């Protein structure tokens, strides 16, 4: 088989692919989305977590999850971490000194330090049973308890399988599930979760689709953590997070699909309405001690940007608003500073694969922009790479989609890998991502449970 034969086969094979008719549901949703004046009609995804909708997303950033992929890969495949040629070839960032550092941490604009990654193994210290097929895209920590989303059906898009989605409480000392929390009927997904004042809140979806005009597709639930009793059920309400003494929600409209209107403040214990503030952004983040509104630019343009507004949680006053070139990830505290990762802006979004960078966000704008990490994966490999902030540290994650995954911590003074590295070296990774909490990573294991790994954070 030569190249020409292969291309011919591929053209024939793919060219014969069906072009299915869109379902009536899709047609209806597309039509419902067109509103006079270009009004926003954002809806929660049916198949993906709302990465930019939950208040606690800053803590559950992508690379945090991806980092856990690497960790889980190392764990699940039982490998001893070792340095692979692939790591230096593809996993190490090639830094283009395009940043304009202005303040601490003290990055070099032309970092020359060689990556001196020292392989360190993540150690499995416990396995948690009792939470089936944990879904890693949301969790909450309160006191000595971790609350996680589980799914008895292992089929989140199906509402016919027994069990559905539920929440489990894990004791962080014993690593045991001590309680579970279920709505009275089968919940397809749990989308967002928070714990505040002894109360567990989560919202989720029911069924597989919502056509315009439907109601109750998404519901917000309140449970008493101690008793496990479901004390409040609010249809057509989306959870945004908890902060400043309130649980924050938004109403869903447009067939219970689009989040619109003000941010409502609820009493975290009882769910009583405590007022609302005006909110005109696409999504909410509670991070770095502030309330942020986030809106991405439209996607038809190559000029990707993110509008960030710092908002007074008391009355909704916009205290500062600025635009970040590119797409901003979750905001995250690092010490007393506020950081986020950014995907590139402008034509780079299309012409460069991934040239992510970090920004430090001040009260009224970007205070510092790191050099770019040239994560180009067009060198013939199939590596997925990303940078992000998680657990108060900076991370670079590479994953070649099956045979190897690495996680490296970046030193912000040089933006080079510090020597903390985890790597998996075998294929067949089946785990789901999870979270980094304190000095532990929690990752789904191949048995459908949760593994706790202690992480040597290194220098």
């Amino acid at each position, binding site marked *: *088989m030569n190249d020409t*034969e*292969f*291309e011919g086969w*591929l*053209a024939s*094979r*793919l*060219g014969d*692919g*069906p*072009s*299915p*008719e*869109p*379902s009536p549901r*899709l047609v209806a*949703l*597309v039509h419902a*989305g*067109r509103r*006079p*004046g*270009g*009004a*926003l*009609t*954002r*809806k929660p995804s*049916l*198949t*993906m*977590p709302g*990465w930019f909708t939950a208040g606690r997303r800053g803590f559950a950033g*992508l690379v945090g*999850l*991806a980092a856990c*992929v690497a960790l889980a890969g190392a764990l699940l495949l039982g490998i001893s971490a070792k340095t692979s040629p692939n790591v230096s070839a593809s996993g190490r960032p090639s830094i283009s000194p395009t940043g304009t550092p202005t303040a601490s941490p003290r990055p070099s604009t032309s970092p020359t330090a060689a990556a001196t990654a020292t392989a360190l193994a993540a150690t499995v210290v416990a396995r948690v049973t009792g939470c089936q097929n944990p*879904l890693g*895209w949301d969790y909450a920590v309160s006191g000595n308890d971790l609350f996680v989303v589980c799914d008895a059906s292992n*089929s989140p*898009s*199906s509402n016919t399988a027994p069990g559905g989605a539920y929440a489990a409480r894990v004791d962080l000392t014993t690593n045991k599930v001590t309680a579970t929390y279920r709505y009275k009927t089968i919940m397809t997904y749990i989308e967002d979760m928070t714990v505040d004042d002894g109360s567990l809140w989560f919202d989720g979806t029911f069924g597989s689709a919502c056509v315009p005009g439907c109601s109750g597709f998404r519901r917000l639930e309140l449970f008493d953590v101690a008793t496990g009793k479901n004390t409040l059920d609010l249809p057509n309400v989306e959870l945004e997070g908890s902060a400043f003494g309130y649980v924050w929600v938004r109403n869903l409209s447009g067939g219970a699909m689009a989040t619109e209107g003000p941010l409502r403040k609820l009493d975290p214990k009882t769910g009583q309405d405590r007022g609302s503030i005006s909110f005109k952004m696409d999504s909410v983040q509670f991070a770095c001690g502030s309330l942020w509104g986030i*809106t991405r630019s*439209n*996607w*038809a*343009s*190559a000029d990707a940007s993110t509008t960030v507004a710092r908002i007074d949680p008391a009355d909704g006053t916009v205290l500062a608003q600025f635009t970040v070139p590119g797409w901003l990830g979750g905001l995250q505290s690092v010490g007393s500073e506020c950081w986020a990762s950014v995907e590139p802006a402008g*034509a780079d979004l299309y*012409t460069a694969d991934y040239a992510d960078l970090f920004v430090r966000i001040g009260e009224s704008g970007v205070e510092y922009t790191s050099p770019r990490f040239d994560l180009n994966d*067009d*060198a*013939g490999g*199939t590596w*997925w790479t990303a940078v992000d902030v998680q657990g108060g540290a900076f991370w670079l994650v590479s*994953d070649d*989609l*099956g045979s190897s995954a690495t996680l490296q911590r970046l030193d912000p003074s040089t933006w080079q890998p510090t020597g903390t590295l985890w790597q998996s070296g075998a294929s067949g990774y089946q785990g*789901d991502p999870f979270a980094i909490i304190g000095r532990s990573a929690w990752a789904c294991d191949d048995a459908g449970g949760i593994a706790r790994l202690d992480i040597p954070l290194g220098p």
Partner: protein
Amino acid sequence: MNAPGPSRAAGSRLTDESFVAMCDAALRRTYGLAGYLLGDATEAEDATQDAMDRAWRARGSLRDPAAFEGWLDRIVANVCRDRMRRRKLARMVDLETGPEHEAADPFRAFLDRDALGHALDALTPEQRIAVVLRFWRDLPLEEIATRLDWPLGTVESRLHHALAVMRVRLERDVGAELRETIQ
């Protein structure tokens, strides 16, 4: 947001009614592109809705109605690229893997017929976009470059590497059977 007026897309000759008609006409093609990029009908529906919503909001930026198809393709590719990247990084749960679901999902059923789907899954989003536009949409390289605003050399490079990756993956997965199929 720079939302255009309700009745006429700012800066273009397209009325909203014309724009809607073009979108409706393109819906099936858009859904198909999303389906082959994502390999999942349900997620393709989400992505299509997302792309159509973004197109509606950005209709004022469409200066030339003749460029509509490429303009919309770019939005779809961008939406799908974002989803692919997040899905891979976050290792989303494979939602439905049973035979019943595969039978109901025309994209998955087609792609999984002979491990083609697994080979496509091994690609980066950009590589997959290039492959689908080239071999499913049957677009010439120059048109792909124009449509995505990629340099022609980038399109060539991504396709070259994508095909190399796919060949390795396919030969590993199906080996002699593939060679017999191709020959």
